[in-house]
């Protein structure tokens, strides 16, 4: 049954409530890292980096299936799961940038991976079409041509990840009772 019809299902609601809380936790940890980047590198405002951002061409993870109108729950879930997987890898660049906060970044990677597999598990439990991801999709670490680009890259990854989580959170809340 399409996901939307299952909104009344108790297990599905429990899944939604749990992972809404999980998403809030992850958003809080991303915000904490954004404060570290601001304090450490004085990179705090995205509007000051629009020009150099074009150099880096850090693309956002699109969640168009999660936006209204045309909200498509199953496709949205797949996009959230894939996006979490992508950010799990991208955060490696942040890990390199903030060695003294490795614990927080690694926790973030673990949380992103857990949330992604929670969604994958729920889709499988509901018998939805699933694309299974290779467990470790570690592309080559991005090579920055300067420390400044690396710092800006880290800042933008976290900013994009925060926006991604905000959209994912609204989608989950839309389905939750």
């Amino acid at each position, binding site marked *: 049954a399409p996901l939307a019809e299952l909104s009344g299902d108790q297990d599905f609601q429990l899944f939604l409530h749990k992972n809404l*809380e999980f998403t*809030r*936790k992850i*958003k809080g940890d991303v915000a904490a890292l954004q404060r570290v980047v601001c304090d450490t590198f004085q990179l705090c405002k995205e509007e000051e980096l629009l020009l150099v951002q074009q150099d880096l061409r850090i693309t956002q993870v699109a969640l168009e299936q999660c936006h209204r109108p045309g909200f498509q729950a199953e496709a949205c879930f797949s996009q959230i799961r894939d996006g979490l997987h992508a950010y799990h890898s991208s955060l490696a660049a942040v890990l390199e940038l903030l060695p003294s906060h490795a614990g927080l970044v690694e926790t973030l990677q673990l949380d992103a991976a*857990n949330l992604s*597999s929670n969604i994958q*598990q729920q889709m499988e439990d509901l018998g939805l079409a699933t694309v299974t991801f290779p467990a470790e999709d570690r592309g080559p670490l991005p090579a920055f041509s300067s420390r400044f680009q690396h710092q800006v890259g880290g800042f933008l990854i976290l900013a994009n990840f925060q926006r991604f989580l905000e959209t994912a959170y609204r989608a989950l809340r839309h389905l939750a009772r």
Partner: protein
Amino acid sequence: LLLLLRLGGTLGCASVEVGSPVVPLGSAVTASCSVRSRLCRGLQGGRARISWMLDNETVAGSQGCGGGDTEVSNLTLPQFNRTQAKLWCWVEWNGTKQRVGLAEIRAGYPPAKPSNLSCLLNLSDYGLTCRWQPGADSLLPTSVVLKCSTSRAPAVTGCTPQGGRSHCTVPRRLLQLYGQMEIWVAASNALGTAESERLRLDPMDVAQLEPPALRSIQSVPPQTDCVTLAWAVAPSSAHMELWCELRYRPPEDPNWVLVTGIVGQAGTAQCCGLLFGTPYLFQMRCRRHSARGHWSEWSAARNHTTHE
């Protein structure tokens, strides 16, 4: 006098065989000591007189020919009641007694089934600490590990208790937060294995919340019998939907008044019906709104004396 032992794997001058080096306590132990005179320099031709010692006690074996120039002594200990012992084979040689073979025997029980397994998730480092009752001592070297599996990953060792303790902590990287996990204890020794019941849980449902903090207490407004408390949850549960309780009482009064169903993150709560000019103690605790998991400890008490 050097022990006449031959290096390398070829059978030496003598060797001791036992049925099993580890036996259930109280069961029988059989052993044989074979002495190959031809390979024992100085023993050629003569019959080797074999004798046995269990640690420091002489025990009697029955000696016979093992064919060729091999003498064999067989020994049966009907009821082996030591948890650990050395079984020595001696041979008389040039008027002296020589140690020529050894078997180390242990006795005990198969591991008991671990029970009362319970776990708590620490929200500062997200380590899952599990405790259990080990059951009767098996008296044998027993390896105990905590196993865990998730719906998406096969069973792995979550942690290994140190120094014979009955608790250990599964690190965050092996946990599936907000997902279903199975956790159990596996014990094994030479005589067998045993597993505890399997605990099916979401680590978050056994989170040990840190208590909220009572920030301030004020009378509201001066002439009523109410007070307003300002409180905040611990940072580690800032992202959670919580269900909190408040209790208060005058110091000398043994009974607490309980205010339940306080929902929300941080804010204020109001208590009315208080006596005037009376010192009160206030405490608060929370747990997750989904009514799963444990209450936090009560917060540090805060006192406030109501106005006259």
